[in-house]
């Protein structure tokens, strides 16, 4: 059976070039602790430094502004908790959006329970934060604005530069969760006016276990935890050298290939979108079609539930994900889709397909062949399907 992986926003395989770069640091060759002074340690130290330069380059930062973490979640927490703890004397108000990843959303809520006021700005039905809404939310107490660059569920690109401009004018620190945009959109922290930025390795064909927080020189953050002097005491613990080296290599490759690869994926994406919209009825593209990352497709299929759709796709070798509550163990479907004003039953029927380097035109043809049949089959079982009921009566 054909296997079509369409969940690149969840995680990606490590690229062969990246694995090759990592291997010496796992094996006898160069496994040393970068904090050690002998030769094994020196090699590790050097590799960590070179990786830092590569990651910094991809986002237009200086190497010494990069702090490695275990991944995107930890970096998001370090940004919010770290700034909140360092600047709480200045004010205790934080602004974020209703469609952030849980790593930002839940952390903001935690801060909301611990002495901070948090405003969650809404989004348009197309899934876009409006600069005006952010502006209106600002108070004299606002110390931090955190708005994601690209939404992980619907792929919408937020007006980061404009929000950053606004934050700068008001002297407010600005963080963006760029986990879903790094390697997919050109990023320059200067041009985007951001003070802190989160990236994650395993979303760009690097290994799991590494990510980073960019912290503009001059911005203070308190660490999430304590121990050794690694990462200039902002993130203690023996460095995950192989993962860091892999992250660096992945960042380098992403930068080199971004333009052509995103052009290719944009074409595949549009083929998939247009193909489904023309073949299936009662389907809606969730998220703005223009302000959208090249890799994201998110459909809402009326009358059916996402989990059963996913499982049916999986039985045909297609890996996708869903905004269905039934895949999260909670009762509510995706907070992102609900924030966009999509009704519960429609949100339950949404499916995300995210493209990546292994996808080909043939993959899309296959999905376009298989998906409509599955939708039809499930709709035939659904009590919500109006057409269906009409027929039956």
């Amino acid at each position, binding site marked *: 059976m054909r296997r079509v992986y369409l969940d690149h926003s969840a995680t990606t395989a490590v690229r062969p070039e990246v694995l090759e770069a990592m291997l010496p640091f796992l094996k006898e060759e160069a496994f040393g602790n970068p904090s050690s002074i002998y030769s094994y340690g020196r090699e590790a130290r050097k590799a960590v430094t070179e990786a830092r330069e590569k990651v910094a380059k991809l986002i237009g930062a200086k190497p010494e502004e990069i702090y490695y973490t275990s991944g995107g979640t930890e970096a998001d927490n370090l940004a919010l908790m770290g700034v909140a703890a360092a600047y709480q004397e200045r004010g205790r108000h934080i602004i974020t959006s209703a469609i952030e990843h849980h790593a930002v959303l839940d952390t903001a809520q935690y801060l909301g329970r611990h002495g901070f006021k948090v405003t969650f700005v809404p989004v348009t039905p197309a899934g876009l934060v409006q600069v005006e809404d952010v502006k209106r939310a600002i108070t004299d107490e606002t110390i931090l604005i955190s708005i994601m660059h690209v939404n992980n569920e619907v792929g919408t690109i937020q007006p980061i530069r404009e929000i950053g401009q606004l934050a700068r004018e008001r002297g407010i620190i600005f963080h963006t969760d760029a986990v879903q945009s790094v390697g997919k959109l050109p990023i320059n922290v200067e041009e985007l006016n951001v003070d802190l930025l989160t990236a994650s390795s395993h979303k760009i064909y690097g290994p799991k276990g590494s990510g980073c927080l960019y912290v503009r020189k001059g911005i203070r953050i308190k660490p999430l935890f304590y121990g050794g002097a690694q990462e200039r005491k902002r993130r203690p613990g023996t460095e995950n050298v192989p993962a860091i080296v892999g992250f660096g290599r992945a960042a380098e490759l992403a930068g080199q290939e971004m333009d052509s690869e995103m052009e290719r994926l944009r074409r595949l994406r549009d083929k998939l979108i247009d193909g489904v919209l023309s073949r299936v009825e009662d389907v809606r593209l969730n998220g703005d079609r223009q302000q959208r990352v090249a890799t994201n497709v998110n459909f809402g299929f009326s009358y059916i539930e996402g*989990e*059963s759709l996913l499982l049916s796709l999986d*039985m045909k070798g297609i890996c996708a994900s869903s905004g*269905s509550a039934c895949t999260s*163990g909670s009762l*509510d479907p995706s907070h992102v889709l609900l924030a966009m004003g999509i009704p*519960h*039953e429609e949100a339950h029927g949404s499916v995300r397909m995210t493209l990546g380097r292994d996808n080909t035109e043939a993959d899309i043809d296959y999905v376009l062949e298989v998906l409509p049949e599955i939708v039809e089959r499930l709709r*035939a079982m659904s009590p*919500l399907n109006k057409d269906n009921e009409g027929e039956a009566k």
Partner: protein
Amino acid sequence: MSKMNNMYSEKVMEHFTCPHNVGEIKEADGIGEVGSPVCGDITRVYIQVEDNIIKDIKFKTFGCSAAIASSSMLTEMAKGKTLEEALKITDADVAAALDGLPPQKMHCSNLAASALHKAIEDYQNKNNIAS
């Protein structure tokens, strides 16, 4: 997102892939519906009753694989039973017949027996039978 798939029994997958008794019964003797679109799970059960026995039963389900499999299994279990017997089938019985369901699925995707009970109630109301 979670990990229920490797927790689904083969029985669940069978009934999800090829569900039995999908559909509606025109002019059914009783119809029962439980669940809500908010929960992402609606099951509707149609029954045809003859001589106090469930002669035919069909379902429609908007829900996840567990919900669909539960409905399918329930209809198999209920067909041919007397109403009294059918009323004794619980959601737990359905789950057991499916060789179990993942814990997080028990409360929400396992409503078929309840829908059947409602359908029987509907039938009894329509026919002025005290339950």
